[in-house]
Each structure stands twice: as structure tokens, then as C-alpha cells.
């Protein structure tokens, strides 16, 4: 399992046949790199993340994650590969309301043996460690129903979950858009710091360009796109 974290070549994707929402001739993210992907809403960011996550399949071209091409794997193996190697983080409501904070963070090890092994002997201790590193500690806080936590606390718990079991790639889709300015900055620096500590590659997608400051590299989706994107081919 070598090669860059993400490698896209000659990708063409559209929801309907004939439509071409995304056309990316070449794009790569190196191991351990922290990339800020900028694009206005509706520009195909979510589709791109679906493609990178191996949930969507392109009409043409290839996407490799950690050297593995999604197209070479059958659907069930894709599910396993995704669960083992990629942590996801979404805009908001990342937590299951009927699970406690710790159990929410522990969700990935229910489905991924690899990530459980990487947690060491006690996944729960690892979950507590990550939560504490992200500023969530204390018996009272950890035992509170997740719906009663602030959005900022929920997003930090979601970040802990994305990082649990040290997946090589963390994909974050507008994780700060529901946060106010102060908690946004705090969240972002904590996320970057933790990704650095676990050595994870971070692909961070947002429409807010001013968040790009701390990243290794900023890419705009429109720059990535080849000329034919957005057109409807007849």
C-alpha cells in the first residue's frame, strides 16, 4: 500500500449520462499533506468526496487512494477499504443521537478490524484520549446525551471519531460551516494538530477561502477542472 494518498487521473463524472459535472485530468495529494479544497456550493465538491471515498464511481478515469484504485475492488471490498483507511467528517449532525459520546467515537471500530487493532488493547481509552486532546474531557461532559452538546463539541467528537484507529486519510466536508468564528478557529487548529500527530492526510473542503491559512496547499475546484466540465455532452 504505497503511492500518494489520493491520485486522480482523467476523471469524468456526472449524475446523469451525458452530464459532466466533474472533469479532472490530474490531481494528487501526498501522504501526510494537508490540502484545502475550495469551491462554491453546487460546484461538485460533495460528488468529488464521494468519488474519493469510493462511494461513487466515475464514468471514466481512475481514482487511487493509498495506491489502490477503487475501480479494481468489488463493492464489498470498497466498503471494507473505506472503513479501514478513511475517516469522514461532515458539516453537522455527525453523531447518532441514541449513542453516548464515547460510543459515537467508537463506531468505526465496530466495523473495521484494522482500526480496532490500531487502537491498541483498549479502544475506549484511545477514544477518551482523542476526545481529551480535542478538548472534550470530564465525566459530566462525556455522559451527557450528545444532542445536548454544543455544535462545536459535536464537531470535535466527530473529529475524534474520524481520527480513531489512525486512518491514513481524513476527509472533511465543510466541518466548520455550522460553527461561530471563535470555535471555528479553535476547531480547525485542533483538527490540524491531531492529523499531524496521527500522520493522517487531510482533505478539507470548504467554500470559505479565509480558512485556508494553516494548510500546506490550497486547491480550487474550478482550477482543477478540465475545460469540458459543466457542459452537457450530446
Amino acid at each position, binding site marked *: 500500500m504505497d503511492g500518494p494518498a489520493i491520485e486522480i487521473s482523467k476523471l469524468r463524472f456526472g449524475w446523469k449520462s451525458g452530464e459532466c459535472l466533474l472533469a479532472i485530468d490530474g490531481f494528487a495529494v501526498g501522504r501526510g499533506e494537508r490540502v484545502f479544497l475550495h469551491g462554491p456550493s453546487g460546484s461538485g465538491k*460533495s460528488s468529488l*468526496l*464521494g468519488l474519493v*471515498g469510493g*462511494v*461513487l464511481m466515475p464514468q471514466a478515469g481512475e481514482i487511487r487512494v493509498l495506491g489502490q484504485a477503487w475501480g479494481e475492488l468489488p*463493492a*464489498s471490498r470498497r*466498503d*471494507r477499504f*473505506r*472503513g*479501514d483507511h478513511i475517516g*469522514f467528517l*461532515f*458539516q453537522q*449532525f*455527525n*453523531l*447518532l*443521537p*441514541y*449513542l453516548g459520546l464515547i460510543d459515537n467515537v467508537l*463506531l*468505526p471500530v*465496530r*466495523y*473495521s478490524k484494522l*482500526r480496532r487493532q490500531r487502537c491498541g488493547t483498549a479502544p475506549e481509552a484511545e477514544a477518551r484520549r482523542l476526545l481529551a486532546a480535542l478538548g472534550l474531557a470530564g465525566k459530566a461532559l462525556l455522559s451527557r446525551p450528545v444532542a445536548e452538546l454544543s455544535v462545536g463539541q459535536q464537531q470535535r467528537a466527530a473529529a475524534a*471519531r474520524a481520527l480513531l484507529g489512525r486512518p491514513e486519510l481524513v476527509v472533511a*466536508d465543510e466541518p466548520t460551516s455550522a460553527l461561530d468564528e471563535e470555535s471555528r478557529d479553535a476547531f480547525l487548529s485542533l483538527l490540524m494538530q491531531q492529523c499531524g500527530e496521527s500522520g493522517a492526510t487531510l482533505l478539507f473542503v470548504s467554500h470559505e477561502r479565509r480558512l485556508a491559512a494553516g494548510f500546506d496547499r490550497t486547491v480550487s475546484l474550478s482550477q482543477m477542472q478540465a475545460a469540458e466540465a459543466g457542459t452537457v455532452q450530446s
Partner: protein
Amino acid sequence: MKGTLILALLSLWNRRGTALLTACSIALSVALLWGVLQVRDGARSGFAATVSGVDLIVGPRTGPLNLLLYSIFQAGEPTSSVSRASFELVARHPDVAWALPLSLGDSHRGFRVLGTTPDYFLHYRHGRRQVLLFAEGRAFAAHGELVIGATVARVLGYQPGTEAVLAHGLGEGSFAEHEETFRVVGVLAPTGTPLDRLVMADLDDLAHLHGAEQSTSLTAFLVGMKERPALLTMQRALNDYRGEALTAIIPGVALSDLWRLVGVADRAMLALSFCVLLAGLVGMTSTLLAALSERRRELAILRSVGARPLNLLGLLMLEAGALSLVGALMGLLTGRLLVAAFAAELEARLGILLEPALLDSTSAAILCGVTAAGLLAGLLPGLAAYRRSLADGLSMRT
């Protein structure tokens, strides 16, 4: 699997309002199905117990069902009669413990009048060999006395001391050629058998009504044997008797023949309650399906942390299975509570004997069957979740 089950239960608990309603609809249909099965068994044994303790019913030469219908159920008309002499002959037979004469043909305000002897109240049994009990009063003993069944007392409002005019013939408002005033001396406790609709008087007393000293012909008579083994010999002897053309039947055999005829209704009831159960399961399926759109986020979260579409299929199936199991348990419990509350009433009014065991094979079969059906029904929302999770991917569009 275990993890998915816990997730399913927690998720259901999170939606416990609708989950409880869904389980209730299953519970009601299970209670109905179980109730119908109980009532069916109860009705069958209650029917078979319309008359018990009587070894033979003897009447003129006729079909067994016909004899049973008019001697026990007071339905239909006897076509001929049995001579008093034959009755006396049987009654005096050394193997015979007792014999009760039956004479039908009169009526009182739409209820049939049975002429017999006071011994009737000693020997006649119904249900689980229960003796006839008097709710009020006593058996007839002297001239002009009547005993009435529970329904007769309720409908006509009679009680001991009420005077009643008996008329010859059947049916309400029949022409009263002979009239005589009788007095009610006893009201029987409800039996749930045709006995409740009878007016009973002394055989010879009724004969007076028709201007005779003593009754010379009977409609039929009931026989109790001293020893059961003598029964078949006696039955054969009576059927072959040269002095008079007689028919002797064993009530249990004739009753089960009759049940085979009327049992169609309970099969229809059973089919109907299976349909209700099906409706309950369809309701659960549609509730789970409808909830899927509100649960897109939940499913997307599970998918993003590594759950495979198959895990989601399993989750939905387990949810449906758990709902069905809980519903079935609730239904069986409800059924038992209802039976406990109404068993006495049902037995008295309809002659349906209900005595459910705490855990019988029927309940176990319902429990397993409904849970399995529920798991299967969960395939539908499960496959929908499976397909949707493939189409939605990880996006959180709501």
C-alpha cells in the same frame, strides 16, 4: 450481528413513540389471532360438551344428526315418536343406571317446553361434567310447576312465582287449544347450552294439558349406563330391537359429526385473523419505510464509519424482527389478560370453554412465526435502506 442488534434496539428506543405504536398494532393482531385460536378450541370443546354424562340418546328410527338436533339442540321437528313401553323396558334394564324421558311439542312465548321427570336435574350433565344448578328456586315436584332456563328468565323477566300459560304447539302465538296456568318454581343457572332456552315441566303434567292421563309417547329419551363397557352392546341391541324401530346414538360421536359441518365458520374466522396479522406486518413495514427518509442522516453516518449496505439491511431487518417479537409478546399477554377477564362470561353465555395454559405450543408457534415473519417483512425497508445508501453515498442531503 450482536453489535447491529444493539444498534437496532437503541435506534428503536430513540424512536420509541412510533415504535410502541407499531408494536401495539402487531400486538392487537396477535391478540386477535391467539384469541380466535383459543375461542375456536374453546367452542369445539364447548360444543362437544353441550351434553356430557349421557351415554345414549334413543329416539324413533331417524338419522343420528336429526335425533341429536331435536333432542339436545331443540332444533328441527321430530318426525315420529317412541312408545312409553320401550322407554320403560330400557329404564328397567339391569345395565341401565337411569333413563330420562324427553317430550317436546309445546311452547311458551317462543321457547320450547320440555316434558321430563325431576330426575333430569339429577342426571343431566353439561360442560366438564357439571351438574345443573339452580340460580333460584328448585326443581318441579308438584302439578303445575315449571323450571326455566337462564335465557328464558332473562328475556321474559320470569322468576320463581311468576305464572305462565302453556299452549299446545310450537312458535309464538300458536293457537291455544289447551291452556293451563303453570307457576315457575326454579330458574337454572346459565349453562351456555340450548338448555338455557328451555321451559321444563313434568312429562305427565304436560300430558294432562293434552287431555291424557299419562303420556304414552315420547320424543326421545336419554340413557346413562352403569358400566361404560355395556354401552356398545346396548346401542346395538336398541338399534336391532324388533318391538319398535329405534335409533340409539352416542352423543360424543354425533356431536363431532355435527361439528364437522358447522366448523367451516371457524376456519373462516381463522383466515380472517391471519389477514389482520398480515395487515399488522404490512403496517409495520410501511412505518419503517416511511421513517427511512427521516433516518437518511443516521444511515449516512453509519455508512461513513464503515457500515456496509448489508449491515444496514441487517439493521432494518433486526428492527422489524424486534418490533414483531415485542408486539407478539404484548399481544399474547393482552390475549391472556382478556381471557382471564372474560372467560367466565364466555362460558356462561356462549358455552365456550377457555382455559389457556401459561405457555402452550400455540403461543410458542405464534411467537416464532410472527418474529420470523417480521424479520422477513424487514427485508423490504432493509433493501430500501441498502439501495438508498448506495445511491446517497456519504452525502448528508436531507
